């Protein structure tokens, strides 16, 4: 079934690739509407009128007088235009003047173009745009046979089919390939769009892989509606190819990341006992195992589950720029990188490494939400494991509040393991996942008894003094003593035993922000 075609302006047909190389002389094409394409052996307007575009197929010589007489008849009949076959010397000067004066657009095909073919193509454009569209889509599929070498190859194939420049835009709208992009479009809508800017019409197609899509865009010059529809169809067909290329790339990156992560985990596990297989794997990845290693741990605080692959290239680039040129290995909550040297590093080296990491974090921006930790320098495979552990510990010690506070400079987000004091060690311990798990298990019996838990915490905080605790809580000391006895009973511990006391105190500290919540600005109520 043919859909009702929009009437085309002759100007739009002239701009179409079908008429590439054709010369437009005589009257202005303007907004003359073409509704039908008529094929005639000679310049003959018999029975034709407005809306008819005549394509002459069997003209011996456009210089002949019949052309001039025909131009007059066509103009009098009011036809939309006259397409003459090319070759020969073309119409005589008087014929061109006459066409110009009578306002009849005259289109001279280039030599060698088949007037029959042109007529067929024009008729398709005018009457059955869907046939033309289907042909272009097939042509694209033919060009794209097999897996594309690159995204550019997809864009270039579409450009060849559409005979118009096709560009690629990054998710933020910046040009990554090609030279044409609309000055603005709805990037928030992952939908095909058409943007008209002066004589250029941009057909925009999202290439969605993740939340932020890439964009394919074709820039058409004064296109017919049919041509816009063709561009939409071709770009829509191009999208899966682009997606497939992106997915392949992604798969390769995932595979590489997994190889790195498992190798590092193996190295940290086996340490000096690493056998030839592990050493061989390291050699394949280009990791140097001997020498002195200094690790850097970059920990994501914003969203530990976020994709560590997406930002990898950027981080690697920044680290390289700042002379940290060892491997970068993805971890569940971030990345670990290290630097290997032939000698133990001097304090000066450590200082410069720390400032490099600060610079990297600054460059990544305050919004990145990344904390950095730096380990000491240790030799060999065992040393690598140690420095990685130290760097992770240092990174864990960074208070998330510091990272979230964008007013603070990036310097406070990088910590060297040597800077960790005893208090920080406790804080590090209480923040660790292990500690949280232990504390939750230990204090589970009190989970439903907030008052008992807060009283217990206050009691331990005040050196196991019922008096001090009761005055701090504003309760009678008998109440406090009673609660402590109940808590001990429920937990099954004896707080006079130093081991039990230490365990319970650490557990209380670990859960404190939660446990202490009701106490803020209010007197706890008895249960």
């Amino acid at each position, binding site marked *: 079934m043919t859909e009702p075609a929009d009437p085309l302006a002759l100007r739009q047909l002239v701009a179409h690739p079908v008429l590439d190389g054709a010369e437009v002389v005589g009257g202005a094409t303007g907004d003359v509407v073409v509704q039908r394409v008529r094929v005639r052996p000679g310049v003959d307007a018999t029975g034709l009128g407005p809306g008819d575009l005549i394509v002459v197929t069997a003209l011996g010589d456009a210089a002949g*007088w019949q052309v001039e007489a025909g131009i007059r008849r066509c103009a009098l009949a009011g036809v939309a235009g006259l397409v003459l076959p090319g070759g020969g010397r073309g119409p*005589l000067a*008087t*014929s061109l003047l*006459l066409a110009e*004066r009578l306002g009849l657009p005259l289109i001279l095909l280039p030599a060698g173009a088949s007037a029959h073919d042109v007529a067929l193509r024009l008729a398709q454009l005018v009457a059955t745009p869907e046939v033309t569209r289907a042909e272009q889509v097939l042509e694209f599929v033919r060009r794209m046979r097999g897996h594309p070498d690159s995204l550019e190859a997809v864009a270039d194939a579409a450009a060849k089919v559409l005979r118009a420049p096709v560009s690629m835009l990054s998710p933020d709208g910046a040009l990554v390939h090609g030279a044409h992009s609309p000055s603005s479009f709805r990037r928030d809508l992952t939908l095909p769009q058409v943007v008209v800017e002066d004589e250029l019409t941009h057909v925009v197609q999202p290439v969605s892989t993740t939340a932020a899509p890439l964009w394919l865009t074709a820039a058409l010059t004064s296109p017919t509606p049919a041509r816009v529809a063709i561009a939409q169809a071709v770009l829509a067909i191009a999208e899966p190819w682009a997606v497939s290329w992106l997915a392949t790339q992604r798969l390769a990156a995932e595979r590489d990341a997994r190889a790195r992560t498992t190798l590092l985990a193996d190295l940290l596990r086996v340490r000096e006992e690493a056998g030839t297989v592990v050493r061989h794997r390291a050699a394949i990845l280009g990791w140097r195992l001997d020498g002195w290693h200094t690790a850097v741990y970059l920990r994501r605080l914003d969203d530990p589950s976020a994709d560590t692959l997406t930002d990898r290239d950027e981080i690697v680039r920044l680290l390289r720029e700042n002379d940290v040129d060892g491997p970068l290995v993805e971890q569940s909550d971030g990345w670990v990188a290290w630097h290997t040297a032939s000698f133990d590093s001097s304090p000066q080296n450590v200082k410069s490494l720390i400032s490099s990491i600060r610079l990297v974090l600054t460059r990544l921006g305050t919004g990145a939400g990344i904390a950095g930790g730096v380990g000491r320098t240790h030799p060999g495979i065992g040393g690598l494991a140690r420095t990685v552990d130290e760097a992770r510990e240092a990174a864990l010690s960074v208070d998330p509040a510091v990272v979230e506070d964008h007013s603070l400079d990036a310097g406070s987000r990088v910590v060297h393991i040597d800077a960790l004091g005893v208090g920080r060690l406790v804080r590090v311990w209480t923040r660790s996942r292990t500690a949280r798990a232990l504390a939750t298990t230990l204090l589970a019996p009190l989970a439903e008894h907030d008052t008992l838990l807060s009283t217990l915490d206050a009691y331990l905080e005040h050196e196991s003094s019922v008096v001090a605790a009761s005055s701090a809580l504003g309760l009678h000391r008998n109440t406090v003593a009673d609660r402590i006895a109940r808590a001990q009973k429920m937990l099954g511990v004896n707080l006079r035993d130093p081991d039990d006391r230490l365990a319970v105190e650490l557990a209380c500290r670990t859960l404190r922000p939660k446990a202490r919540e009701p106490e803020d600005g209010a007197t706890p109520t008895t249960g």
Partner: protein
Amino acid sequence: MSDAPAGQALSVDDVDALRWGASLLGSGGGGEPRLGALWLAREMSGGAGVEVVAVDTLAEGWVLTVAVAGSTASVGIEKLPAGDELRRCVTVAERYHGVHIDAIGVVEVGGSNALFPFIAAAQTGKPVVDADLMGRAFSRLDQTVMDPGPDLTGAWVCAEAHGAAMVIDGVEPRTAERVMRGALTGLGGWAALAYPPLSAETYRRVALRGTVRAAIGLGRRYRAGAAAGLDGPELAERLGAEHLGQGTVLEVYRYPGKGFGNGSVAVRTTDGAQVLRVEMQNEYAMVLRDGEVVATTPDVICLLDTHSLQVIQTGEVRRGHEVVLLALPVPDRLWHPDILPRVAPRAFGLDADPVRRTKGRMR
């Protein structure tokens, strides 16, 4: 020479006027009559007189229509005549046919062939009939007012400068022309030619009366008009012609490989409001104004230089020429349905109906 009809002697001034008239009636082709006029004037200055007799004075006897046939229009200038070709042509014809020729007939009163019969007459002492067979110049032997079948089938005689003569007997004009063109390439390019002789009665019946004197009159009016510096429309008025327009030649396109003198002349009118296009097929054969056919053969179409009013032949027209376009009337008989197919545009290979601009005009 039995009872020679009495006529009027041709004056030297008549010769000059005939030259200009024939030039106009050449319709851009037919050859330049200047050489023939000089030759005739020389014959006359030697004492030879030429009488022009009215067609009605022909009682009986034979009329031999004489012309010069060449492979191209310009070959008569490139190869000079020996001087006695025309006389020998008449002599050979008389001998071959075994008749006495009483008068010389004119095939075409346009172009160079308007003058040659007078030279033959001057050399043989025979009178020239004031009537021709074409009323203007045409390029083919069969384009006359006579039925080429029965009337013009017979013996055609050629005589060329080095003394050769040739008789092609028993053929109609198209065949005679084809044979002659082939033979002329071996005979120096051109030769004097005599049509099969016509009886005085036939000639009187079919020939176009008074066209010789009319051509002389036309030439005289043209000469006076040119001398007076008339502009295009004024000259047309004086010649009884239609002024088709005037302007500048934008380009001349000569069709490749299609005979000689074929092409188109593109003209933009001086006021820029119209375009004129002249189609050439040996002669100027058709005029289009703004794509509309406005004048065709058999009317005579002339291109004159706007400033000098000189006739511009098809071979001479060039880009940049400023030209006046005129259509001159021809005798009504050429528009007769029996004759028209031989002289209308289609006879020239132009697929268009004849358009008569000059109906009712007299020249």
